[in-house]
């Protein structure tokens, strides 16, 4: 597996796991009508969810940046008909 794909897979796994954790916390907090459930929803669930999303978006950005730096890809783009 190319290094770039491995990196992306790892990041997707990490982002997915954090997002699942965040969503599970948020789902559990919705089953409990209590001020602490709101705090859990925002601070724990929200934190996991936001971290997962940020990791995914950063992976997307870094993967597209890596692709644009790839000389093989650049030469392919150059020979493509406009």
């Amino acid at each position: 597996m190319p290094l770039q794909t491995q990196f992306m897979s790892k990041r997707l796994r990490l982002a997915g796991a954090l997002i699942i954790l965040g969503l599970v916390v948020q789902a559990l907090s919705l089953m409990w009508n209590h001020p602490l459930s709101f705090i859990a929803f925002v601070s724990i669930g929200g934190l996991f969810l936001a971290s997962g999303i940020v990791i995914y978006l950063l992976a997307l950005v870094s993967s597209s940046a890596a692709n644009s730096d790839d000389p093989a890809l650049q030469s392919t783009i150059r020979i493509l008909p406009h």
Partner: protein
Amino acid sequence: MPTSLILAILLIAIILAGLVAFRPGLTVARGGKVLAFLALFVFPVFAGLLGLENHVERSKQTSFCLTCHIMEPYGRSLYVDDPSFIPAAHFQNSRIPRDEACYTCHTDYTLYYGGIKAKFRGLHHIYAQYISKPHHPIKLYQPYNNRECLHCHLGSRSFEQGAVHTADAQTMADIKSNKLSCTSSGCHDNVHNVSQLDHVKYWKPVE
């Protein structure tokens, strides 16, 4: 939106995120990339916002406010069998929705119309309830605003044509501009009055 529906959306979001997390190879193809974007961005954000909206709506419920021990006497004051107790009279006669009784008359409280300061106060209440100790007796941060009464009473006959309200033009103007409080001494001043709760009779709603 009902909580069960939001839970269903959260479950779908979890399944989709799981699919991408456990089978990242799917994202090599173009369709997989779209799936990953939906699963790791669109659905979690959408489900999170729905959950947040649900929490905010639920925090308007009377039962939510009364989960804090210190609010218990204020909840009890809604059942006082004495029409001079303003909150009790409003609650028992359904002049305010019973399941959102606190929020209806305290709209500026913490989470709602309040600014950043009010949000931090809300956090401070949780700290005071669970970690430190709440002040005894609790007090409003600011004098009670007539706006809370006028969002229902403004324009009503009993308010606009009440003998005391219309005694002179200045009185009405002062009430409307919040210069003269509705809860001023001698007016509607018997509010929760929790210190008297051991000496009053209680109304029992018909089941």
